[in-house]
């Protein structure tokens, strides 16, 4: 697969279809895989592809100007679709080199939770597709592979227990905003957390400020988050952020039968409505 990727990348650069390609590379002396920006043909050899390419490169699309090539997994493509839905990128300046991806692993080599329930091993949208020759080795499925099993444990708890659990988590937050900066859908030039008139969110990492910040973030991603899992990966204090977004995803799917990142023509759920939307909770 790697040679195909490099060949395609070289082609794109050669006939000037793109000015830069955002991809993955092994950083030279240590074993880390990191994002990279290739601008010349012979730089293409730095491109790599393995199960450590966890980064969602679509977060760079808004900053990098001009014609851009991007190496993308299935989940990354979903976030590109979501960005198109919200007029943040125009499709024809982007060339997507999509890769069939079985699963990515975390630092300890465990398969990421999101990959267990992934339905886009073959990405939904692309300009070039790189398929893997070998038949995909079946990941041994665990019973916890049902789509929203990650939520069951917390949903089973009582309300006060849930409040204790989340207060415990939000207390750890140091407000480094890595969860916001890494998220491709958090593209606002001035985030609501920076607003002083009115001050929606207390700026210091107090319990009250942290709780409000995490609630605002979860609500602002409701119906938009495509579960690339980056926020949870980068959180230095290991707050289970994915569980917040996954809960929103689950509720929106059950109520409005909408899954984000699949159709760039569709209106995101919270700016759309149907006359027969559920309203059993309204007196």
């Amino acid at each position, binding site marked *: 697969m790697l040679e195909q990727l490099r060949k395609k990348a070289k082609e794109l650069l050669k006939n000037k279809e793109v000015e830069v390609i955002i991809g993955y590379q092994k950083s030279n002396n240590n074993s*880390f895989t990191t994002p990279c920006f290739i601008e010349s043909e012979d730089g293409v050899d730095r491109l790599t592809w393995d199960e450590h390419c966890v980064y969602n490169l679509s977060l760079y699309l808004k900053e990098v100007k001009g014609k851009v090539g991007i190496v993308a997994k299935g989940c990354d493509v979903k976030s590109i679709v979501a960005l198109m839905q919200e007029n943040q990128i125009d499709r024809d300046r982007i060339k997507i080199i999509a890769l069939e991806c079985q699963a990515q692993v975390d630092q300890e080599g465990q398969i990421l939770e999101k990959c267990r329930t992934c339905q886009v091993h073959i990405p939904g949208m692309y300009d070039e597709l790189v398929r893997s020759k070998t038949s995909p080795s079946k990941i041994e499925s665990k019973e916890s592979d049902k789509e929203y099993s990650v939520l069951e444990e917390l949903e089973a708890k009582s309300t006060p227990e849930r409040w204790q659990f989340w207060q415990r988590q939000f207390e750890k937050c*140091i407000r480094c905003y*890595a969860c916001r900066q*890494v998220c491709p859908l958090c593209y606002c030039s001035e985030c609501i957390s920076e607003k002083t008139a009115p001050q929606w969110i207390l700026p210091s990492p107090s319990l009250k400020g942290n709780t409000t910040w995490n609630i605002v973030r979860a609500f602002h991603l409701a119906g938009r988050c495509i579960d690339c899992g980056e926020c949870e990966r980068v959180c*230095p204090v290991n707050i289970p952020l994915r569980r917040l977004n996954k809960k929103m995803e689950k509720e929106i799917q059950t109520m409005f039968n909408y899954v984000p990142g699949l159709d760039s023509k569709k209106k995101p759920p919270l700016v759309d409505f149907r006359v027969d939307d559920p309203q059993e909770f309204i007196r």
Partner: protein
Amino acid sequence: MKRLLKKEELNRLLLGLMKEYDVIAPIDEEGLILFRPVTKVEQVLWDYPNSLKPVKEFFLPPREVLFQFKRGKVQPANLSLKKRVIWGVRPCDARSLLLLDKVFLDSTQDVYYREKRKSTLLVGLSCNHPEKSCFCTSFASGPHHKEGMDLLIADLEEGIFLLESNSPEGEQLLKGRGKEVNKIDEKIRTKIKEKTERKIERKLKPSQFLERLTNGFDSSYWEKASRQCISCGICRYLCPTCHCFDIADEEGERVRFWDGCSFRNFTKMTSGENPRFGKRERFKQWYYHKFGYFKENHGVFLCVGCGRCLRNCPVKIDFSEVLQQLPAQAQTPAREG
């Protein structure tokens, strides 16, 4: 003064400290290694790489109430603090406090910081298994340095520890404990010291940093180096020497809390002007402040080589690489990246 103690003697020392002081030590909290107040010896971790959050958090806390105001009256927060001991500080963190002292204890003393420094004893633990990302040796420090500590514990393996005091209070703690240290112990200790220092392969040559930075200011190198950065606050917050903070009024209190020059509104003026609007300028500011301006003003780099920034960067930027590959002379733009 140097003494040799067995493990249980060390534990007894720790227990004694717990009676007299508030003891803060590294514990494992849901997989995170953090310094937390401890009451039981078992809680304390012994073999751990380094804590996630540096001990800076006990002197320049993530959030600190400067004063409260009620009905127009200003009530400063009470500064006096029960005497405490931070156990298990790594040499790099201890040294970082000395650097912070240069900022907070200069001519205009920061009262909050000073009270905390005065009422805290530092009992360090030297490193025998440094991380791949550690490079304290490149910045006038080392796995066994006792700079900035009151007492340093060196683990000679097989349950024997060589304790060396580095301040009168340290000596006070050590008096009448354990055995004399003889030549062989000294030799074992220096052998272990050199062995660990050799383990640190990541070597930097900081000498040319200042010069390369000064004339590389406008180089297009920074455009390439900063591209990968997502401007979050992790490297700034987890760095033991980064000391920038913000002040705001929150519900009846004026609070000071950590801030980072990586954020766009760090230098955004109310008029909308922002000298460091772009990601490139904000990325550069970290390097120039730590290895340029601080060096020029205080003659020492604002870095202790603890490696936290390398370990925790979400996009794995290796900042030591960024510095190593700093071009000697000014770069002409758009060279192959």
